[in-house]
């Protein structure tokens, strides 16, 4: 039990850190603190912005978590709802990759 609680606390801490990293890396500031759209209809980034953003984010994740993650994975491409769509989905997707 104690172990599980510690893991859960660590995951939450990582989630907050990942979310902040996503927000800090975005080249265009979002208007508020909600779950705003990054890419797609109503998104703040166009496709070229997205490529630059993801490349930058991979390096920042490496610096913060010492993990060599590639965000453009098969899983990302096969998901019905793109993990790059908004801040929440991208954060959840990165947490999954970090947990692997």
């Amino acid at each position, binding site marked *: 039990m104690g172990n599980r609680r510690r893991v859960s606390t660590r995951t939450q801490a990582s989630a907050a850190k990942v979310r902040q990293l996503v927000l800090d890396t975005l080249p265009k500031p979002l208007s508020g603190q909600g779950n705003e759209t990054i890419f797609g209809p109503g998104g703040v980034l166009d496709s070229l912005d997205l490529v630059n953003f993801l*490349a*930058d984010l991979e390096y920042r994740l490496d610096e913060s978590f010492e993990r*060599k993650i590639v965000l453009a994975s098969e899983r990302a491409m096969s998901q019905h709802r793109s993990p790059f769509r908004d801040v929440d989905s991208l954060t959840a997707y990165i947490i999954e990759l970090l947990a692997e």
Partner: protein
Amino acid sequence: MSRKRIVVITGTSRGIGRGLAAYFLRQGDIVCGCSRKPGTLRHERYRHFVLDVADEKAVVAMIRSVMADHGRIDALLNNAGIAAMNHALITPDSVARAVFATNFHGTFLFCREAAKAMLRRKAGRIVNFATVATPLRLEGEAIYAASKAAVESFTQVLARELGPSGITVNAVGPTPVPTDLIKSVPPAKMTALLARQAIRRFGSIKDVINVVDFFLSPRSDFITGQIVYLGGVNG
């Protein structure tokens, strides 16, 4: 005085790749090379990585390591390549897959990872390696020529995708250069091949370096998506 360039070259244990690495080291640049086998170059400005260019994780790790050491990549030369010279009908599928893995997937992975690094500075030069076997439609080299045709197409599309980001992507298409890659080709076949060139001689590593130097020149920032064949072969 210009600062040292950070040059990543694949397939540096022998042949053209080794010659390219030695050349850039003589120019004062820092060279990071790789091959499946341990490196054969020893130099204070050379670092070797033992990897398979088609291994995604290994490629990512190498490029991140170069970035951690130097903070940038100025040029990528995707030289690593293997050939399978045989009639298409007696080529095992495993051989075809291995040729595509090294020649195309290796090029793709290094381009993808190095371009991400280059995006950070909105500058960079990528040179891929094509072959005259593709435009000459050489019999007996169907798989090799097809894998390099994929590299050409990829080069031209990537040039458009990276053009707005200040990164150029070109390819050099060497004629046969006397290296291990062609040592098993019968002399009669090689003579017939050279006869199809405008200038009928073997290429040399210097000929390849000349084109690579041109692509890497700061003055070539308006040159991208081009495939330059040696020996007067046309695409």
